[in-house]
């Protein structure tokens, strides 16, 4: 599916934009081993706001079982978590909370936006007064998974993609400009 991204501009996503901090948190002395460790031990924060959270639970469940990758140690406190999986809609009231949680996480930290809502507000993009049009207005996002909700496999796919990204040691900006993810 070839899309000319130069020609089509991303829809201009208005809405109250919350300033996101810079994305320069990766340690400069990157080392393959450390990246290996980091990529294989992504502990998610238990953060599920709505429907997508159920699919996230399914990923934790027996059939999909993300513990195979070592992700099962879901931590309730941001101090111990490595990755936020934003599973669900972010509304204006929640945005500062999300920001605070992200800020309180210890570096290095990663963000996955799961589902249409987290990417862009999805089903609630038009005619709603309270939905943040995309979690990346609030915090920087590493991987986007479209779908409403995405299949559990899609989340696994995204996690593997994130692993690949960490292993490569690329920063968020470098990756954003790279070609679409393919497997």
């Amino acid at each position, binding site marked *: 599916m070839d899309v000319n991204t130069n020609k089509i501009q991303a829809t201009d996503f208005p809405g109250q934009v919350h300033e996101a*901090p*810079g994305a*320069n*948190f990766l*340690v400069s*002395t990157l080392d393959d081993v450390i990246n290996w460790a980091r990529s294989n031990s992504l502990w998610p924060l238990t953060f599920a706001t709505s429907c997508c959270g159920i699919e996230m639970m399914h990923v934790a469940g027996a059939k999909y079982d993300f513990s195979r990758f070592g992700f099962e140690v879901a931590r309730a*406190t*941001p*101090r111990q978590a490595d990755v936020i999986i934003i599973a669900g809609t972010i509304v204006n009231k929640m945005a500062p*909370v*999300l*920001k*605070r*949680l992200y*800020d*309180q996480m*210890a*570096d290095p930290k990663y963000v996955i936006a799961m589902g249409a809502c987290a990417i862009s507000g999805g089903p609630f993009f038009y005619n709603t007064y309270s939905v943040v049009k995309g979690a990346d207005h609030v915090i920087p996002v590493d991987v986007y998974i479209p779908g409403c909700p995405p299949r559990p496999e899609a989340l696994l796919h995204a996690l593997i993609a994130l692993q690949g990204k960490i292993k490569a040691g690329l920063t968020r900006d470098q990756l954003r400009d790279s070609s679409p993810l393919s497997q």
Partner: protein
Amino acid sequence: MGAASLLVLIFAGIAFAGGGISIALLFVKGSKNAQKGQPYECGIPSTGSPWNQFNVGYYLFALIFLIFDVELVFMYPWAVVVKKVGIMALVEIVIFFFILFMGFLYAHKKGALKWM
């Protein structure tokens, strides 16, 4: 190896913990922001100091525990020699136990062992 081994172990502990923590301190530089140092409370700014005086419902348990703890201390020498001393030791400890058990029953009756 004797008691000196305790020192060795203490140093081993310090080395282990200190080594682990200091690596992160030395090599990982984290991002700074105003929120980071705030206490975590499910993403809501915390109100009030956590160090307010605090109603400890368990305090009476600790009191009674202390008494029993001391009792336990006396039991150790007793237990070691009970086989040697024989029936006399049993009699003595039964008296000892009995008296304390009265206390226990009293505490129970008074509801001191009921939580709150």
